[in-house]
């Protein structure tokens, strides 16, 4: 078991990089609860193997390796929800790595695009993504059908992606 200094180091690194790991997991496993389970399992695995971590190398990359192992286990376990094949997941991970260099630019563009959204669209996104309200709850509070809320979410994501791509094309 690592000593107290390593424990402190681990705690700092894990807290710092946990959101980044969760984001990477959610690309393959989009359901938040499932992704959080995988991150939790990853945290335990990282702590067990922390003595092997080379602190001269990026923690996020090391951690992501373990997260991917946990994702494969999850995909193999036959989740209650529909899931991608392992082969598709591996290909996506490779493509994800190839896109990593532009992540900061994409994040900056996303912020600018979110700022341009009208209030109603912001409300729907905030409710769904940040307040973690169900689509049924959003439908009730917005006076729309469940299908309509799903459609709004899909159009918003598509519009945000168009906006991001437009901004990146101008850089």
């Amino acid at each position, binding site marked *: 078991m690592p000593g*107290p200094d390593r424990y402190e180091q681990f705690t700092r690194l894990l807290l710092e990089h946990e959101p980044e790991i969760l984001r990477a997991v959610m690309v393959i496993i989009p359901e938040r*609860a499932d992704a959080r389970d995988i991150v939790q399992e990853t945290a*335990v695995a990282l702590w067990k193997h922390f003595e092997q971590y080379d602190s001269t190398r990026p923690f996020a990359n090391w951690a992501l390796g373990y997260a991917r192992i946990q994702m494969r286990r999850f995909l193999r376990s036959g989740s209650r929800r529909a899931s*991608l094949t392992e082969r*598709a997941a591996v290909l996506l991970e490779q*493509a994800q790595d190839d896109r990593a260099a532009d992540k900061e630019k994409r994040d900056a563009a*996303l912020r600018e695009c979110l700022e341009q959204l009208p209030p109603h669209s912001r409300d729907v996104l905030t409710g769904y993504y940040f307040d973690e309200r169900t689509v049924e709850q959003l439908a009730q509070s917005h006076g729309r059908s469940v299908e309509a809320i799903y459609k709004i979410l*899909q159009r918003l994501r598509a519009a945000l*992606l168009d906006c991001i791509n437009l901004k990146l094309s101008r850089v």
Partner: protein
Amino acid sequence: MNHDDLIHHYLDGTATQAEADELSQLIETDADMRTRYLALAELHAALSADETLRPVLTKPAALRLWSWIPALRQMAAGVVLGGVAVSAVWAYALPKSRPSVALPLVDASFESGIHRGASVPDEIGRWSGDPVSFVSDHAAVKPRSGSKMLKFLAADNLGGTNPKNMSSDVWQVMDLPGDGPRDVIISAWFNAETTQPARFHLMAMASDADATSAPSVWKARYLEANSVPAAARSMTFVDANPTTWEQGEVVLRVPASAKTLIIGIGAYRLSAVPGEAAFSGQFVDEVRVTLSSEEVLP
């Protein structure tokens, strides 16, 4: 169904396995589809997991709660991570000779068994939050002090096991005496009777609002995630020995105008597998809150 619909259905959790298989097939064979999926999925993941995006979407009026907070760049042990300070059991950072005063935390060792309300309390002096029980022993685990300890039971404020919630949390709101920059040190002892590594956290947040605003202050804690320094969090893993307790600690430097302190204590759930106990045996006891007017942070 067009390809974008397939992707959106999968991201929203409404796809059938047949649709997920069709999507997988397209991802495996079509590089353009792979790129399109990644772009939409990365957007979905960013919105789901990046709390710093929330203030971009939230109405300006909601930001008033944090308008007084100065931009502190150094907090617990000098680390600020996205507005959340990380500290751990760093006794060396807390010299015992410094002047400090213990703050009157109500039921600090959970002897009274009073726990009322399902979320952050809106008044001083009571524990509230997720379902818990107050027990005198549990297998090999005995109270750290007094005759009882708090046992975490569930993570969704309603007694169930909502898998969306990672931790079972209890909170208490306190008056914060004095003025000027002060440091609050919160400690608690943790233990677990489980074969899995058990993880706990301590959270602290200072506010210039009174106790009645504590629930909304807590809810708004991410509104200005880039500049919310008056919040700190520490994590503690406990060992596998149920006869020993491990101490967690968090240090929070509070702004001059702060007058209310919200403390939160939580246990991470052990399992999300249906039928398995998420909180089979995780305990906290002997919570202490100390105020120091001397800087204990680097």
